[in-house]
């Protein structure tokens, strides 16, 4: 579905993403975790061709086997219309306040699938049912401000699913919601991905939510992927010091503290301009060595489908 090779996103001299490589097979569910500002949203936006105007993308990015890194806006629009979809963090702000949500969901159906009004409405009704919106026929005619946060997020999911995308990118879809509502949204996303055979990229701060959702996991820090592998394995046996820190800082999984932030690693994430040239995590790392700040660690395989980028791994430099 997606093959990204050494994607770098720069704002002037600052790199928001550095040499990120990522494969996402159809139907797979991938979690992306990391602290605020580590480039998770930037990665999602890069895969949508929706980076800010000031951003410069380099590297190779292929979607459905088509090279898109240098693609025109028109090509990206075609992809966004049918193949990749994205939902965002703040569900109220993400809906046009002046339009009935039904209209909003029907818009891509009519435009991209060429359905007439009635067919689009019927399809929107199906989508509302599929995403678990109660009393869907009435909800179609309501405005965003008349819906609850969870319902709005479901509307956005319905909108994203409208044209049967092969990949749904969910950028912290539960952060703005109550814990139990967020949990249901998370489970809904998993169910939808399974039922539809759709790939899911689930971006979150929250290890517990990712553990529920994703088969695979990548951990990001400072615009790089520092560790990756099957979710269960990474969580059970974290190899990168940063991942270990994240897990140590995490509240007990069972307690359901879904919204707890991961911030107990000493220090704070430096600004983009102040990231060290070598290992991005040096300066905060508990097991740091002399060359860490200047020499970049490469990702090394540490098992089947597992890897981490740390000088401590693999023994030698």
């Amino acid at each position: 579905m997606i093959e990204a090779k050494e994607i770098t996103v720069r704002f002037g001299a600052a790199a928001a993403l550095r040499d990120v490589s990522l494969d996402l097979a159809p139907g797979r569910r991938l979690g992306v975790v990391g602290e605020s500002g580590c480039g998770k949203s930037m990665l999602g936006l890069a895969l949508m061709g929706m980076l800010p105007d000031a951003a410069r993308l380099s590297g190779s990015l292929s979607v459905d086997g088509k090279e898109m890194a240098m693609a025109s806006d028109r090509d990206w629009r075609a992809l966004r219309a049918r193949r990749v979809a994205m939902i965002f963090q703040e569900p109220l702000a993400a809906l046009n306040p002046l339009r009935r949500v039904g209209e909003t969901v029907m818009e891509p159906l009519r435009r991209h699938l060429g359905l007439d009004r009635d067919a689009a409405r019927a399809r929107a009704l199906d989508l509302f049912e599929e995403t678990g919106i109660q009393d869907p026929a009435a909800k179609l005619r309501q405005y965003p401000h008349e819906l609850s946060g969870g319902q709005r997020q479901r509307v956005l999911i319905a909108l994203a699913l409208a044209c049967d995308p092969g990949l749904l990118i969910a950028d912290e879809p539960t952060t703005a919601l109550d814990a139990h509502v967020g949990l249901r949204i998370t489970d809904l996303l998993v169910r939808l991905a399974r039922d539809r055979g759709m790939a899911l990229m689930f971006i979150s701060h929250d290890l517990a939510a990712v553990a529920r959702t994703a088969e695979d996991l990548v951990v990001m820090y400072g615009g790089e992927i520092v560790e990756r592998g099957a979710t269960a394995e990474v969580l059970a046996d974290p190899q990168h010091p940063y991942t270990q820190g994240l897990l140590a800082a995490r509240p007990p999984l069972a307690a359901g503290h879904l919204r707890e932030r991961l911030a107990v690693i000493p220090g704070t994430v430096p600004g983009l301009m102040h990231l060290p040239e070598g290992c991005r995590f040096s300066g905060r790392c508990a097991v740091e060595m002399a060359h860490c700040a200047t020499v970049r660690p490469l990702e090394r395989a540490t098992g089947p489908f597992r890897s981490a980028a740390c000088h401590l791994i693999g023994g030698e430099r």
Partner: protein
Amino acid sequence: MQIFLIRRSLGFLATLFAISVIVFLVMNVLPGDPAVTILGIDSTEDARAALRAELGLDRPIWLRYGDWVWGAVRGDFGTSYFFRVPVSELIAERLPLTLSLAGLAMLATVLLGVTLGIVAAANHGRTGDWLIMVLSQLGIAVPAFWLSILLVLLFAVKLRWLPPGGFPGWDEPVLALRSLVLPTVALALVQSAVLARVTRSSALEVMRLDFVRTARATGLPPGRIWGRHILPNALVPIVTIVGMQVAAVVTGTIVIENVFYLPGLGRLVFQSIANRDLFTVQALVVMFAGIVVTANFLVDIAYALIDPRLKGRLA
């Protein structure tokens, strides 16, 4: 919504009433004796007395006010002392020209102003944006009547494409429209400079909002995103300014009609001032103020139609 409409309508009527009181006071009471205003200070006392009797000026003030308002409600503004015909007739003859000019100018203002504002916002930070902003900053400072003179110099005196002024009447629609081109442009250029700035800043604010990102994420083309998502949400400040511009354009026609010698209400006002035709001026001032207030009233109602969130709150 209904309650809102009723409340606003009552407020609107109250404003109209207050306007009529102010106009009546300023024009009939403050100067002292209207007979002197009409006949001049060198008139004889006999002539004044005769005029007072003729126009009913010897009756108590509140009766005169009552008559005037009651007449105005029925469309009777009294008789022009100078032309010796009903004021309503004078107005009816000239109203179409003034309304056409104001209407054309508003149309041109909205088309040009909103388009320029969108182009500037869509090119935010680039040369096009900068150019439009500089031009509109200049445009705001340009007096419409001076622009008119320049337009006449260029298009009528030098190039001879369009008439320098005057109006041939509606029997010749093409000629009539041709003679409205320069006045319309003069009114609209300045106003659209204002509107372009407001449209731009309002659009820029909306463009940052999340739902625009959602619309982009669903693969909609820019035209559609602008038409269905950005513009409708940018509309409230635009409508506010357009409402104020109706007032500016309508009073602007008074000036512009005099620049181009167009026989509309604006010209009538000035003839009537020169003729000391008090009642005609009085009727026209109330009319112009009424148009301004009506525009504001319509804008208030438009808000509620634009934004469903307001509709809920106003009900």
